[in-house]
């Protein structure tokens, strides 16, 4: 029986090729989006779930009070891990991780930079990573030992066993390879290729509770309740540090997607983008289903006769229902196969784009279930209304072949669905325009410092040791305009301190000031404008203790004329020698905050070189030569500051590109539906068009008549989509501290694009109908 249904369904699909192709390809595109997003979401959701007993692992954050508001920090002080293990009975193991670093590794002739970190003893008890050779736990606990991954082992040792071999780290200290572990899967929030005990890098000042610079993770006992652990953790800061700070636990599996905290509670993060794209994918699928429904009901009048005859010869309503559902499921199935093919084709590009090795494993049970669910849901969603509608038709009506509006007006429903489709498409187009505008703005916005033609070179090995002679040689190159050194790149100054104080400061006021150590000529090289005072200068020996502040700092301290005033900060009590105009110290997501520059060339890790216009290639050549001369053990490495700046917007760029593609897809599917509907309408109205032509209507009259109806629908969509898009985009722009304004032309542009596209789609069919000979259409009566 079922076979028979599908046989007839197949015949029907073949008979109406034009409509079948539009339906199948529309559904395929919709399903393609859904599948792509499914694989992406699945990958994002898989983060950190491969660790054995990952449910017991927690990331420790700290809540503290800042001028009356609870702020949550992701970094924690060094003594916290030991205190947690000692004082909180629920904690079985606790480990702390220093930030990841790219350090030079040498073994014999081989040298290269590898990313790794320093971690404390319990690391492998918290993260139970599988060992290939040796015992990682013991290796980490023994002095002068290093644990490496399979990657590093294969790269440096190839055929020989790495265990017991000595490698040099950072061109500085030798370590014995104590164990080799499996490569860390890319869906781990902790990444490393080597790990050395934290004791090897620990300094005395790190022992302070006020220095938050590490990531702390704990593993609870399997049956322990995290709430109890959190309660017990409340006593730690008061006991050891006399501070009102409360450590809290975040399940490891949430670290990737719930990174934002507000008022001490998780408030989202990457999960929001996942939600947005899941919704967008569903919308696109809905648009495709709507095409199917619309065509099916529109064409129902043509099939009314078939239904009538079937009923007259005894078909029950439910067998007719099954017949029509079979047709839509068959269409969905063909769409699904096409969609899977498309996913397979585009997955490599998509993976590169989201920077994740996304796999399409359809044998995976959850994926397989979802695909089958997708097939059935799409089939039923798009088939059920037409099936109900058609199977309900009474045979008397049908045989007369005149289909009067049924239990509710199908034409009205059809129009509403077209409006719905275009509302979504226009919404996406507006979003596309706004997001694109904001991206442009971020790229071109004047940061207040000049990031163009600035190269950064990491100061490592001899470059660090001979920083000053190296700088002098660099300046000698004709292609170089200026050079300076700094502790971090001035486009993303992350370090901050609460230590600022000044005469007359309210003792209750808590401050948080960004800090950066710089060398001489920083202001000049970066082209930062001074509002008052001067840059650090070798002519004043006392400058090594002085401070350069920005306008925001002056405002924070309530000083009209800060130059010459004594303030107290990291160098102790010392004068402010200059005030910089405010410049952006982070991405435009962040507001400009108070900033203090301290002169300390020895604290530098980058040299910033400003090249002369048009001489950048020459400068790079000169710099390479110099680096090779000074630092033969290290590979020559440089970055462009503006490229590094772009990287701050990687997520934004990704979102913007995805929205662009999805917006276009939504539009394409909507247009396909409109095309089919227009073709059908024109076909339906041939007689009317013929009469009108006989009565003197011109081609233009007819085209306007036919296209006008659709244009009206698109206009309604614009009216609905605009406020929704305004609201959503307004909220999105608010996530930036600095953003463009929403402009009315963005909405007009989106609307015009939609109307234009709809018009082109529809008028093709309308012109065809309008230029047909009326004699023919009237003859068919």
């Amino acid at each position, binding site marked *: 029986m079922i076979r028979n249904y599908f046989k007839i369904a197949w015949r029907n699909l073949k008979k109406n090729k034009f409509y079948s192709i539009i339906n199948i390809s529309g559904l395929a595109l919709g399903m393609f989006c859904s599948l792509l997003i499914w694989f992406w979401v699945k990958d994002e959701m898989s983060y950190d779930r491969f660790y054995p007993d990952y449910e017991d692992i927690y990331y420790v954050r700290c809540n503290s009070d800042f001028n009356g508001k609870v702020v949550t920090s992701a970094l924690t002080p060094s003594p916290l891990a030991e205190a947690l293990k000692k004082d909180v009975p629920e904690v079985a193991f606790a480990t702390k991780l220093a930030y990841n670093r790219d350090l030079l590794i040498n073994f014999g002739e081989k040298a290269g930079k590898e990313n790794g970190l320093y971690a404390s003893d319990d690391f492998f008890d918290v993260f139970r990573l599988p060992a290939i050779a040796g015992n990682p736990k013991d290796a980490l606990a023994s002095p002068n030992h290093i644990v490496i991954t399979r990657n590093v082992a294969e790269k440096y040792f190839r055929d020989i066993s790495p265990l017991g071999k000595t490698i040099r780290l950072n061109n500085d200290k030798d370590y014995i390879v104590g164990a080799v572990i499996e490569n860390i899967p890319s869906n781990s929030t902790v990444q490393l290729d080597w790990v050395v005990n934290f004791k090897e890098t620990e300094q005395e000042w790190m022992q302070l509770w006020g220095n938050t610079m590490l990531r702390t993770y704990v593993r609870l006992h399997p049956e322990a309740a995290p709430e109890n652990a959190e309660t017990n953790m409340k006593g730690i800061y008061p006991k050891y540090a006399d501070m009102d700070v409360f450590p809290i636990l975040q399940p490891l599996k949430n670290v990737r997607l719930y990174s934002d905290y507000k008022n001490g509670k998780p408030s989202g993060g990457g999960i929001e983008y996942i939600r947005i794209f899941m919704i967008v994918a569903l919308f696109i699928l809905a648009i495709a289903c709507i095409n199917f429904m619309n065509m099916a009901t529109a064409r129902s009048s043509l099939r009314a006769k078939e239904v009538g005859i079937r009923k007259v010869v005894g078909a029950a309503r439910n067998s007719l229902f099954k017949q029509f559902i079979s047709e839509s499921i068959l269409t969905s199935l063909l769409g699904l196969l096409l969609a899977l093919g498309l996913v397979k084709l585009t997955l490599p590009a998509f993976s590169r784009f989201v920077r994740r090795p996304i796999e399409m494993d359809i044998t995976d049970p959850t994926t397989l279930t979802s695909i089958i669910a997708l097939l059935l849901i799409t089939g039923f969603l798009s088939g059920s209304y037409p099936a109900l509608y058609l199977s309900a038709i009474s045979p008397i009506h049908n045989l007369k072949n005149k289909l009067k509006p049924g239990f509710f007006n199908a034409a009205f429903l059809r129009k509403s669905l077209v409006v719905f489709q275009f509302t979504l498409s226009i919404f996406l187009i507006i979003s596309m325009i706004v997001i694109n505008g904001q991206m442009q703005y971020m790229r071109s916005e004047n940061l207040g410092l000049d990031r163009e033609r600035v190269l950064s070179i990491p100061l490592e090995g001899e470059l660090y040791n001979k920083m000053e002679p190296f700088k002098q040689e660099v300046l000698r190159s004709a292609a170089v305009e200026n050079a300076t050194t700094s502790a971090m790149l001035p486009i993303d100054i992350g370090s901050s301190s609460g230590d600022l104080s000044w005469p007359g400061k309210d003792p209750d006021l808590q401050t948080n000031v960004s800090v950066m150590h710089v060398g001489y000529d920083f202001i000049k090289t970066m082209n930062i404008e001074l509002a008052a005072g001067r840059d650090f200068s070798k002519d004043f020996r006392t400058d090594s203790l002085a401070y350069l502040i920005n306008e925001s700092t002056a405002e924070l301290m309530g000083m009209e004329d800060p130059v010459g005033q004594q303030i107290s900060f990291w160098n102790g009590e010392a004068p402010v020698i200059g005030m910089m105009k405010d410049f952006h110290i982070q991405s435009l997501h962040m507001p400009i905050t108070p900033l203090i520059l301290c002169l300390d060339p020895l604290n530098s890790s980058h040299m910033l070189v400003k090249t002369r216009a048009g001489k950048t290639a020459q400068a790079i050549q000169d710099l390479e030569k110099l680096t090779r001369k000074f630092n033969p053990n290290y590979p020559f490495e440089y970055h462009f500051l503006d490229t590094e700046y772009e990287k701050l917007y990687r997520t934004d760029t990704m979102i913007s590109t995805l929205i662009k593609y999805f917006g276009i897809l939504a539009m394409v599917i909507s247009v396909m539906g409109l095309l089919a509907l227009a073709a059908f309408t024109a076909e339906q109205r041939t*007689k*009317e068009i*013929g*009469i*009108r*032509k*006989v*009565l*003197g*209507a*011109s081609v233009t*009259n007819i085209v306007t008549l036919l296209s006008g109806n659709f244009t009206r629908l698109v206009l309604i969509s614009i009216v609905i989509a605009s406020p929704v898009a305004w609201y959503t985009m307004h909220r999105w722009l608010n996530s930036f501290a600095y953003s463009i304004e929403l402009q009315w032309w963005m909405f007009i542009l989106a609307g015009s694009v939609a109307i234009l596209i709809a018009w082109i789609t529809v008028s093709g069919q309308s012109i065809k109908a309008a230029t047909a*000979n*009326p*004699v023919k259409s*009237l003859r068919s*009566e």
Partner: protein
Amino acid sequence: MIKITDLEKFYRTEEVQTVALNKLSFDVKEGEFVAVMGPSGCGKSTLLNILGLLDDPDGGSFIFNGIEVSGFNERKRANLRKHNIGFVFQSFNLIDELTVFENVELPLIYTGVKAADRKERVHEVLEKMQIMHRKNHFPQQLSGGQQQRVAVARAVVNNPKLILADEPTGNLDSSNGNEVMDLLTELNQQGTTIVMVTHSEHDAKFSHRIIRMLDGQKVTENILV
């Protein structure tokens, strides 16, 4: 008003070529009422389509109001048509989605008459066709005779010089048919030229002259008055 000479029309469908009109010639004078008769398939509708400038002949000459119109392009034909010719069809050919009023108003819209004038003119003809009380009804809500009266109203609303009627009573019973024939006669008496295709000898008697056709050719002509 109409002078056709050696008019030809062929239809090609795949390999078969049908000769619909075969060197047909006749004249129609201004103010005349001519009936065209003949068996099914002899080319009557084809002739009417050409006279109505809906179709182009394949050969011969067609002079309308002193102008040679065969070979006119679509736009020129449409322009001439909408100002000079009204049509009445066997199957009424009203637009189902429009009301009686709107159906009759259509030709005026396409000739660019102002809305206020349109209303006045439509009311005038609806009165005359005695269908005014149904002006807001849809075609489906009317009887066949009423529908054909609407169709005639629509054909004359522009004051055309020529009315072409293709079996105007073909779908009507005899009393409704007679009503329509009376209307046409009245229009003719007011000066409108009429060419009517019919199968009914009874209806043909309303005309001045009957042209009988066979296989695309004129066979006889009877003058009745």
